[in-house]
């Protein structure tokens, strides 16, 4: 077992455990704890991106998800925190959800993966560079890039309109 495998299993365990803590925290029902667990899960997934050689995506993940998105979540949580109330957990519904979704997860893992190991290129690290992604974004995927920019613009205008109208 080399260092990469140790890193992979450690980071995956952190990602899954903090992902579970986002959904169901046994200690508190405060959404702020969920937001902090979400940060840890997103950072772990960024670590998994680095292990796969996707350095650009890892950086984008850190900047956008762990930076912007979580800060927005924490803003909303802190601003709406004062009069928030948390009802009692409904254990029957929670148990039913865990059973159904756990069964779905089991079926997905069992049936979705092929029997033979997937072929993969071991020298992907040099290819997963920022330059190649940027070139691909502005040649093959130029329409999708423009659409994404229009989408972000519309989201910005929509957010301002939603929150500012009286």
């Amino acid at each position, binding site marked *: 077992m080399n260092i990469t495998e140790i890193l992979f299993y450690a980071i995956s365990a952190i990602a899954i455990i903090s992902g579970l803590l986002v959904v169901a925290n046994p200690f508190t029902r405060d959404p702020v704890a969920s937001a902090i667990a979400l940060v840890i899960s997103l950072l772990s997934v960024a670590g998994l991106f680095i292990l796969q*050689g996707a350095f650009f995506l890892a950086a984008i993940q850190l900047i956008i998800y762990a930076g912007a998105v979580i800060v927005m979540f924490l803003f909303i949580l802190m601003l*709406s925190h004062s009069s928030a109330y948390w009802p009692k957990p409904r254990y029957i519904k929670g148990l039913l959800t865990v059973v159904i979704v756990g069964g779905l997860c089991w079926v997905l*893992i069992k049936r979705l993966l092929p029997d033979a190991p997937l072929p993969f290129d071991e020298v992907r690290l040099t290819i997963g560079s920022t330059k190649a992604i940027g070139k691909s974004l502005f040649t093959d995927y130029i329409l999708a890039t423009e659409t994404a920019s229009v989408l972000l613009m519309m989201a910005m205008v929509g957010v301002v309109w939603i929150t500012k109208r009286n």
Partner: protein
Amino acid sequence: MDNQTKLIMIAPEKYIIISTILFCTGLAGVVGRTNILIMLMSIELMLNAGNLALVAFSQIHGLDGQVLAFFVISLAAAEVAVGLALVTEMFKLKKSSQTDDLKELKM
């Protein structure tokens, strides 16, 4: 070069299993919780699991998966902005972030 090739010796199937577990965790959060902020966070978790699967498949098929994951990240940013704006409006109207309080359309 030897170090670089050794860095990514893990098979993509393992990443896909991790991605499936994370996706199902987020799905359980969307279905099982009633706090709308935690539901939004679970949606983020699901999108992130999808990104992990896309990057794992880009180990096999080339760089297209990473480009698609980039678009998913930008879409998630737009989605969370609009979602949180709607949550603030809901909080102004209902003084609550529980989905149980939204029952105007219930017969």
